């Protein structure tokens, strides 16, 4: 019960950071946008996949109502929740398969964990990018933008994770 409240507060904090800090920050690299909102799908503990998808969809929809773009972030977060487990499997060794249920810095190590975040960020950015543009003409530009955004977002998420998850997990 306590962990539910804790994760809910964490979700609110992510939302506040995204909307009131990152969206207001000046644009340092052209055509890019730091976006870490979907970290709650990536970093929250493993739960029943259906519940994670429902939570991701609801969370994305909440952000959509703030931005006035119903459906875009909800669809992208949902996609992320669906592909989270296959991507984790991709990054695990065969001997770790049954041993470790969680994808975490502690288990995956710093480098592998970064690439894990990068892949998921790219999936998210690519999907939401195409949904926003809603056209396959100029796909190259959309893909380039997704790569740049995924890199920036991954670095931010990585820092965020180290601050909020790594120390705690290392302690236990």
């Amino acid at each position, binding site marked *: 019960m306590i962990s539910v409240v804790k994760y809910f507060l964490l979700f609110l904090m992510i939302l506040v950071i995204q909307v009131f800090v990152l969206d207001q920050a000046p644009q340092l690299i052209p055509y890019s946008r730091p976006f870490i909102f979907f970290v709650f799908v990536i970093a929250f503990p493993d739960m029943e*996949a259906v519940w994670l998808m429902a939570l991701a969809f609801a969370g994305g929809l909440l952000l959509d109502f703030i931005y006035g773009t119903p*459906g875009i972030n909800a669809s992208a977060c949902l996609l992320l929740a669906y592909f989270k487990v296959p991507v984790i499997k991709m990054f695990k060794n065969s001997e770790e398969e049954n041993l470790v249920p969680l994808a975490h810095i502690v288990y995956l190590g710093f480098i592998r964990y970064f690439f894990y975040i990068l892949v998921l960020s790219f999936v998210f950015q690519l999907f939401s990018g195409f949904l926003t543009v809603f056209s396959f003409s100029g796909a190259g530009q959309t893909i380039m933008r997704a790569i740049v955004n995924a890199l920036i977002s991954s670095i931010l998420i990585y820092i965020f994770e180290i601050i909020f998850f790594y120390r705690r997990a290392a302690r236990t």
Partner: protein
Amino acid sequence: MGNIFAFLLRHHKFFVFIILEGIGFSLVVNYNKDQGSAFYRSTNEISGLAYKGIGNLKYYFHLQEVNDSLMAENARLRAKMLNALYFDTAKPKTITDTIVKQRYTFIPCNVVNNSVTNMNNYLTLGAGENMGIGNHLGVVTTSGIVGITRNVSKHFASVLSILHKDFTVSAQILENKQIGTVTWNGFDPDIVVMKDVPLNVKITKGMHVVTSPYSDLFPTGSSVGIVTKYEANHNDANYTIYIKLSTDMRNINKVYVVSNLMREEKIKTETIPVSK
């Protein structure tokens, strides 16, 4: 039955994903203006392609009738040619004509889909922006008016048929120049209704109804139909006049999209606020 449930249960994660993603996509399409218009434009394009295939086939079987109507139109146009006229002047002379200007242009195209049985009927034309067709242009056949374009993609145009509850056109009775409004009452695809004609005007069966000068979508005098029946409506002192359409709406193949070159200027003149 048990197998189906077992299958659904085994892949429940995938089905939940598909359902939620479907909801997300419908939200994107219905509540985001840009995505929505792009989506409906492309579906318009796809259904247009399907209708075009069917339309090509139908068109082949109607070639005989198309030929007949083209012959009739040719005959009418030939009758208007200079060599079909007789100039009753002793001394022919050249006239440099500066008062006649082109007002309407006509874009010929094929009909690839048509409906007459619904409450709101539409046609689809096999030509779109590529042929210079825009939104809100009149559509006529050789025999009379057909509708107004309402949605145009690159290769297709959707037309609001005269058999649609939103269609209205200003028309006049040819014999006495009385102006009224023509709409469709949703019953017979051969009959439209003309309203706003006051009771003091004399109406007889067989009078011709054509488009009025007020209508800027159709050239003045485009045929609408012939009066078949009229009823005096004493509540508002107007006639309800039933008109048999001169166009057979069930059987349309070739149409002309009418582009009024002066429409923009007219609308601009009408809508610019008066300066003081």
